[in-house]
């Protein structure tokens, strides 16, 4: 098995304690840092698809994301100053009145694994805070809003519409248990992901990556 393939499988299997050494070996064997990173991103794509298909569950996705981040840590010194792998910044938060963070955290991990620089605003985020965060951060290309409660759907709508009023060109993706494609369309969001597994693919599609 090639060293890069080994890294890929370790990420997919969530073997966070072994990934760093495998990345080092791949580098020593002459694999390019960018190729190793691409392999890990592809692994997380597979993980996301398996999650969406119900083949794996939250723990498996969490440990894969953790393994990926261990691998990325190892690549950082080699790739320092190279921003070509970044897809841009994504601002994410759970909307006002909603304290649920598990789904939001999973999406943060998946988007980070896909190459976005994530700014996590946490939970119970007022609509205006999303706009402020867009202004405070560089190269924001996407905003992701999560809502888990039927009662906070109006807050999701307010968040999307506040962002769009301030910055009509900004892409906004929404998700959460009660959210549907129809509701996303109705409130003016650009995209919708039914689960964390499919969020990265949708986010990349929205920014044309």
């Amino acid at each position: 098995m090639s060293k890069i393939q080994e890294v890929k499988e370790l990420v997919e299997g969530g073997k966070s304690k072994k990934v760093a050494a495998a990345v080092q070996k791949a580098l020593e064997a002459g694999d390019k840092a960018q190729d190793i990173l691409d392999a890990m991103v592809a692994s997380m794509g597979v993980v996301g698809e398996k999650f969406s298909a119900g083949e794996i569950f939250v723990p498996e996705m969490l440990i894969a994301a953790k393994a990926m981040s261990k691998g990325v840590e190892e690549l950082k010194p080699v790739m320092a100053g190279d921003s070509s792998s970044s897809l841009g910044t994504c601002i994410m938060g759970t909307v006002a009145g909603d304290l649920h963070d598990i789904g939001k955290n999973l999406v943060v991990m998946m988007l980070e694994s896909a190459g976005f620089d994530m700014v996590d605003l946490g939970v119970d985020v007022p609509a205006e805070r999303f706009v402020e965060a867009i202004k405070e951060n560089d190269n924001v290309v996407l905003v992701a809003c999560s809502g888990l409660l039927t009662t906070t759907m109006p807050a999701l709508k307010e968040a999307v519409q506040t962002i769009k009023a301030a910055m009509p060109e900004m892409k906004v993706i929404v998700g959460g248990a009660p959210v549907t494609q129809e509701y996303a369309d109705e409130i003016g969001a650009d995209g919708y992901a039914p689960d964390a597994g499919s969020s990265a693919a949708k986010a990349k599609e929205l920014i044309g990556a």
Partner: protein
Amino acid sequence: MLTAKQNLQETIKGGKPDRFVNQNEFLEFVFEAPMTSFCTGPGTEIEDEWGILWRWPEGQLGPFPVHDEEHKVIKDITEWKQYVKTPDHYKNPEAWIEAKEHVKQIDQNEKYITIMFFPGIFEMTHSLMGMEDALMALYEEPEAMHELIDWYTDYLLDYAKVLIEQIGPTAIYQHDDWGSQISTFMSPETFKEFFLPSYKKIFSFYKENGVELILHHSDSYAATLVPSMIEMGIDIWQGVMTTNNIPALIKEYGGKISFMGGIHSGEVDFPEWNEAIIKEHVDRICKKCGQLYFIPNLTQGADVSSFPGVYEAVTAEIDRISKEMF
């Protein structure tokens, strides 16, 4: 007319109920039993006997455990023993005086003496360290997680002994959310490995000591866990959401377990609720699920709703449809 208890028995045993079991009518909750401390309402926070900080912000429907680095009780699962403490507040007989008084008033021909027990085993693991840490530990530190679960199981068994001695409950209403609305938090295999044996032990102990009925609350998707629920001795899964295809579950498992819920709290229990919405939901689920092995109920659990009048309106609609369908 059957008593509430008789009607429940007819429903879950495939007999001849004379009406729908109406939500929790067969249960009398003894909320005076000593439990660990809990937030009293919006705007409050409390550190419970386990050291878990609970915060209920204004405008929210319930409290959440706080899991920033400072407030996680277990900061390293491999060192869990150095972080946890085991409450013994329930061992004081005086703590049971009010509960015992309540039990004396219960007409046991009509109702089961019931304790709603929170948190469940899975909930305790993630209340102590946060959901992400708890779920990852199932893979990364399985031995430590087994030890932690065994420790809490021992606590639950010790509590059960005192509970039985003090008030002799005839039903247990265990709370443990095992999934989101569309999926379980873990695979059925992982669930089986970590949580089935403990619950089997606890529920068997209850049943050997006078408890006739085990209800388990998980207002989530959990259809794939039903075989484990049956194996651990659950009689009624409360909180079953329609994302589970309840009619199919009834067809496959009716007689071994019954399903209580089907009326999504999130879809009927909100500030702008009205009777027409509730009627629609009650009609739909009752007609779909039929008269056996099903108990129409708000998924949230217990005999409450988040917004005034919703629980009572659901009860009234179930009474109405009972007259139509029975």
